């Protein structure tokens, strides 16, 4: 934070900010490794918001009005279309997707979220922007998480449009669609079983387990760490909750319910540690 503030005020150089981000990323990775997480994230430290890097790397989409992100005191530049068929001019490089020492996840906006408010269909942005970006990811990317804050909140969401967009991605990658910071029930009720993704992410601070459909056959990214609360989770409670989920869903992964940028870094670090403790407690219980 200090480095980017200093850069804004002309008190440091872009190179110095790069070095600081490198150090911060390494520290964040170490926290995840210490916690024993299976897939690592780079923390998206350089991303101004979920959309901006892709907008700036595109022809036909640009950053628009400053807009509140859901019910938070965080803002993003809403995508604005300047062409009917935007294209990714150049895939994001290491500046935005830091190399990591182990299998990783990459988080991108879902096509529904990226198209929201632009007048474009999710399928158009999926094919023009997201598909080439996902295809450019290296083999160390084990899972691409498509972050979807809006779909369950939008009135009358069209599952067919979302499904069509995901099909347009047509990539040979493990894909997850994560419904962040919302009650996923409206989306789950539409029936997500046929969506061409491998995993579905659910915020279990706003969604009840009984709202999971019977026969949920995909991997469940169970959002059990509340990324918007300063309160720290009890690993035992998380493990017990996950065990109950496993009675209904075969493959459960434990994750935060959204980006951890909504809590300060020391709190985020502790939440990651507790996520890891919950995972080990769950494994011990199973053994």
């Amino acid at each position, binding site marked *: 934070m200090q480095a*980017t503030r200093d850069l804004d005020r002309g008190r440091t150089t872009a190179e110095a900010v790069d070095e600081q981000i490198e150090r911060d990323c390494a520290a964040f990775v170490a926290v995840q490794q210490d916690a024993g997480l299976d897939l690592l994230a780079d923390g998206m430290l350089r991303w101004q918001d979920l959309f901006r890097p892709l907008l700036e790397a595109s022809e036909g989409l640009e950053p628009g009005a400053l807009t509140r992100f859901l*019910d938070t*005191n*965080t803002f993003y530049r809403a995508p604005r279309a300047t062409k009917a068929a935007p294209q990714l001019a150049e895939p994001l490089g290491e500046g935005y997707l830091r190399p990591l020492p182990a299998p990783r996840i990459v988080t991108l906006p879902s096509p529904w979220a990226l198209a929201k408010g632009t007048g474009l269909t999710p399928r158009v942005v999926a094919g023009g922007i997201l598909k080439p970006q996902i295809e450019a990811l290296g083999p160390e990317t084990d899972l691409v998480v498509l972050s979807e804050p809006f779909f369950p909140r939008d009135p009358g969401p069209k599952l067919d449009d979302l499904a069509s967009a995901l099909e347009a991605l047509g990539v040979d990658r493990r894909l997850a669609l994560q419904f962040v910071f919302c009650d996923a029930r409206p989306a789950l009720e539409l029936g997500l079983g046929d969506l061409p993704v491998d995993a579905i992410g659910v915020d279990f601070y706003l969604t009840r387990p009984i709202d999971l459909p019977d026969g949920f056959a995909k991997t469940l990214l169970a959002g059990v760490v509340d990324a918007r*609360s300063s309160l720290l989770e009890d690993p035992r409670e998380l493990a017990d909750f996950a065990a109950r989920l496993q009675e209904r869903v075969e493959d459960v992964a434990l994750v935060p319910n959204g980006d951890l940028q909504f809590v300060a870094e020391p709190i985020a670090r502790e939440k990651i540690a507790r996520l890891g403790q919950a995972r080990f407690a769950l494994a011990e219980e199973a053994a």
Partner: protein
Amino acid sequence: MKEVKFLTHEIGSLAKPPWLVKTNAGRPLQQADIEHARLWGEKVGVPGYDRLIAVLDQPERDPNEVARWSSRYALRLFESAGVDVVYDGEQQRSEMYAWAVAHANGFVERGTVRSFDNKYYTKSAVVAAPSLREPYHNEEFEFLQSAAEHELKIPVTGAYTLAIWSYDEHFGPRGGRLGGAVRRQAEIAARREFALDLAHDVIRPNLQALIDLGATWIQIDEPGASTESDELEVFVESFNESVEGLDCMFSTHLCFSDYDLFFPSIEGMSGCKQYCVGFANYDSRELGTSGADRPGYEVISKFRDLPYEPILGLGVLDIHRDFIEPPELVRDRILYAVDVLGDPARIQICPDCGLRTRSWEVAYDKLVSMVNGTRLAEAALNGAHAVTGETNVFPR
């Protein structure tokens, strides 16, 4: 018809100058910092600014003294730009949220989080029932009363925004939340209790203290008001709890929100005499006075139709871009608003929000353009009507 004359005013924050930032941080000044003070002292006509230069030349500087100088500069920046109603851009405050919670009991800092881009704020958790430690704008207001040449309007961060920007470790349940077990109505009830406690025990005594000192216009800043779309009634209730029965003009500032959400809830906020709202952020830069030309202002008819007929503080400057709005663009935004509201007396002119993210150079040029555009709009309206010599400024 009376001659049309729009009141212009600022909103709140202005960037702190480098000589204040470095003084607060205990860092040495560079010659460029002192030149900044000299240049702006001359440019906006700060009386006796050479005394500040002498202070800045010293290796040890009193941060409070330098902050008061910064207040003088900010006042003069607004005044010399031609803005009618001014404040000091919050030069003596840390930040609109942090300053308030630092002077209240019941909060603990929980670290710094991002707001957007490279802008951050220190977020606290409420851990006990909040109360006012001491009125926290009195000293600032008394000083500004002595320094301002134009009328003052005091920005005070509102109860709901303080509540929604804080982590809740006191009012809501601390455990058993996993699994969607805490239903939404329980969360809303907890926030209502928090916001009303803030309104009654922190904001209201603070407002009363300012009124006792002679404040005539207080702006309750509520940028977080629409954060939760199903809590608008809590926002309204907390505003009313803050101001009811107090003798002052109260306005509120809303920004970067889906303004449609406020209706119909704010129909119950009749103690608010002016809504100061940011629209330019959503608007086109093209000239024109039709609805199609002014997409950012589509919602203003809803403010027009409020039963208690508040004034609309029309945001005409996008405060997150360096783009200097041409006076003609400001003019057209005003003329469109006049066309929709019908009565020019229900319109006042302001930036979308505080200008703290812009340099003083950009902020000043934007404000000058805002004032010039306002004069163009007045000329257009007065040229279109018979002028009687009366001036039609809404009474405050």
